[in-house]
C-alpha cells in the first residue's frame, strides 16, 4: 500500500520535472511536424483557402524543374562536401596527432570557422569572391592570371561550387576534432604491436587505425550528408540560389515557395520530402552503429 503510494508520488514528481521541457518540445517541434504532413496534402492558395488534393503536391513536385534542380544541386553539395570534409578531417586528425609544436593553435584555427555564425561566414566570403575588389581576384590578377578572375558568385558554372567550397572550409576542422578524439581512444599498444610485426606506417593506418575509427566515420559521414541536405544560410547569403537557380537547394526552394509565393501546401510537401531524406539517413546511422555494437 505504502509502496504503491510512494511509487505514485515518485511518478507525479517525475512528470512535474519533465513537463516544462516536454510541453515546449510537443508544441514547437512535434506538433508542427505532424502539421506539415497534413499541410502537404492541401492545396493552399494565397487567399488562405485550402482543400484536400491528396498526393497532388507530390505529383507536381515531380514535374517542377526548379525543385528537381534543387534536389540535384543538393546531392552535388552533399557528395562534394562529404568527399572533401571526410578526407580533410581524417588526414587533418592524423596530422594533429603527430605532436607538432603549436598544435593547439593549429587545431583551434582549423575548427574556428565552425563556431562562427554561417551568415557572417557567407558575407565574409562574398567579400573575398567580389569580382572587382575581392581578395581572390586581386590575388589572381597579381599573379597575372587575369583570365581566371571570374565573377565567381554570378557565374552559373562556378556559383554552386564556391558555396560548397566555403561549406567545406567551415566544417572540415570540426569533423577533424571528432576524428582526433577517436584517435586518442586507440591504444598505442595495438599500433606498436603492428609496427613490431613489421607493418609499415601506411599499412598500420589502413589496416588498424582507420577501421578502428569506424564509429567516428559513421558520425562524420551521416552528419555531413544530413547537414548538406539542410543547407540554407550559406546559399541564401552567398548566391540567393542564383544565377538562374543554378545554385538553389531544397531548403531555399522550400523557403521561396512558402514565404515568397505563399504556397504553404506545396512547400509543406517539399518539407516532407526533406524529412524523409533525413529520416532515412538517421535510420542508416542507427542501423550501422547497432550492427557495430553487436
Amino acid at each position, binding site marked *: 500500500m505504502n509502496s504503491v503510494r510512494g511509487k505514485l508520488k*515518485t*511518478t507525479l514528481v517525475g512528470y512535474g520535472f519533465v513537463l516544462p521541457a516536454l510541453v515546449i518540445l510537443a508544441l514547437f517541434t512535434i506538433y508542427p511536424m505532424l502539421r506539415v504532413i497534413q499541410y502537404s496534402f492541401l492545396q493552399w492558395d494565397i487567399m488562405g483557402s485550402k482543400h484536400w488534393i491528396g498526393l497532388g503536391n507530390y505529383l507536381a513536385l515531380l514535374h517542377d524543374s526548379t525543385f528537381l534542380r534543387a534536389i540535384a544541386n543538393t546531392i552535388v553539395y552533399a557528395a562534394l562536401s562529404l568527399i572533401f570534409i571526410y578526407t580533410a578531417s581524417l588526414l587533418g586528425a592524423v596530422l594533429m596527432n603527430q605532436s607538432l609544436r603549436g598544435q593547439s593553435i*593549429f587545431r583551434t584555427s582549423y575548427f574556428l570557422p565552425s563556431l562562427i*555564425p554561417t551568415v*557572417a561566414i557567407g558575407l565574409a566570403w562574398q567579400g573575398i569572391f567580389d569580382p572587382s575588389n575581392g581578395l581572390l581576384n586581386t590575388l589572381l590578377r597579381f599573379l597575372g592570371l587575369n583570365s581566371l578572375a571570374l565573377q565567381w558568385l554570378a557565374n552559373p558554372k562556378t556559383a554552386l561550387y564556391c558555396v560548397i567550397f566555403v561549406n567545406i572550409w567551415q566544417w572540415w576542422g570540426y569533423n577533424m*576534432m571528432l576524428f582526433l578524439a577517436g584517435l586518442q581512444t586507440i591504444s598505442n599498444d595495438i599500433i606498436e604491436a603492428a609496427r613490431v610485426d613489421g607493418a609499415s606506417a601506411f599499412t598500420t593506418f589502413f589496416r588498424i587505425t582507420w577501421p578502428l575509427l569506424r564509429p567516428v566515420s*559513421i558520425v562524420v559521414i551521416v552528419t555531413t550528408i544530413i547537414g548538406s541536405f539542410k543547407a*540554407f544560410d550559406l546559399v541564401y547569403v552567398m548566391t540567393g540560389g542564383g544565377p538562374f537557380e543554378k545554385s538553389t537547394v531544397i531548403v531555399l526552394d522550400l523557403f521561396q515557395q512558402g514565404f515568397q509565393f505563399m504556397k504553404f501546401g506545396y512547400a509543406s510537401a517539399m518539407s516532407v520530402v526533406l524529412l524523409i531524406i*533525413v529520416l532515412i539517413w538517421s535510420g542508416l546511422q542507427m542501423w550501422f552503429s547497432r550492427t557495430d555494437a553487436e
Partner: protein
Amino acid sequence: MVQGGVSLRAKRRGVLYLIAVVLFVVQVFPFLYVFSNSLRTPATAMRGFALIPNQFHFANYERAWSMAGMGHYFINSVVITAISTFLTVVVTALAGYAFGRIRFWGRGILFGIVLSGMIIPSQVTVIPLYIFLQHLNLLNNYLALVFPYIAMQTPFSIFVFRNYFMTIPNELEDSAKMDGCGMMRTFWNVMMPLALPAIATVTIFSFMSDWSEFLYATVFMTDPNMMTLPTGLVHFQGQYTYDWPLLFAAIVMIIIPVLVVFMFLQKFFVKGLTAGAVKG
C-alpha cells in the same frame, strides 16, 4: 646511414609543419582580412594584401552600430539568446534529472519521444510553425524565436543532462534526503552545483545555435525593429551593398561575442564539440 635516417625524419617533420601552416593560413586569413578591412576607409579598403591598415578607422563601427541599426539587432540578439539559453538550461536540467534519476512510470517511452525529436530538422517545421505563431499572434515578438529555440535544443540538452546525472553517486542524494530536503531542494542545492560541466555544454550549444540561427529569424521577424544580428546583417547588406568596410565591421560585431564565450569556456567547448560523437 644513421644520419640519412635523421635527415629523412627531419624532412618529414618539415613537410608536416608546412602543411599545418598552410592550413592555418587558409583557415585564419579570411578573418584577418575581414578585420583589417573593417578598419579602413571605403576608399582604401580592399586594396592589396597588407593586413595592417595605415591608420585605424573605427568610424565604420560607429556607422554600423548607430546609423545602420546594428546596435538594435545586437540588443535583440543578446536578449533572445540570453533568455532562450537560460530557459533551455533550466527546463532540460529538470527533465534530464528526472530521466536520469527518478523512476517514474512511462519514463522509457517519454525519453524515446524526446530522442526522436533530435532527428527532426528545424527546416522541416518552419511552415507550420509560422502559421502556428501567426495564430498565437506572436510573429515579430521575442517569444516567436525563444520557444522554437528552446524546443530545438531540448532533445540534445536533456540527453546531456540525463547522462551526466546518471553518473552522480546515490549517496549524495540519499544524504540530502536524510537531512530532510525535498526533491526540488535536492535538485537545486545538491545536484545542480555538481552538474556544472553539463550546464556548460548545454549553455555553449544553445548559445551558439541561438546566436547563429537564421531561417526562423528571417521568417518570424520581418519587422526591422525585431530582427536579430544574422537577419539584420543580411537586411543591412541589401542597403549598403559594396560598402565592404561597413559590412565587415558588422561581421566583426557578430563574431566577437562568439570568440569571447569561446575563450572563457574553451575547455568545455572542445569537450562538448566531440561529446556523443566518439561514444556513439
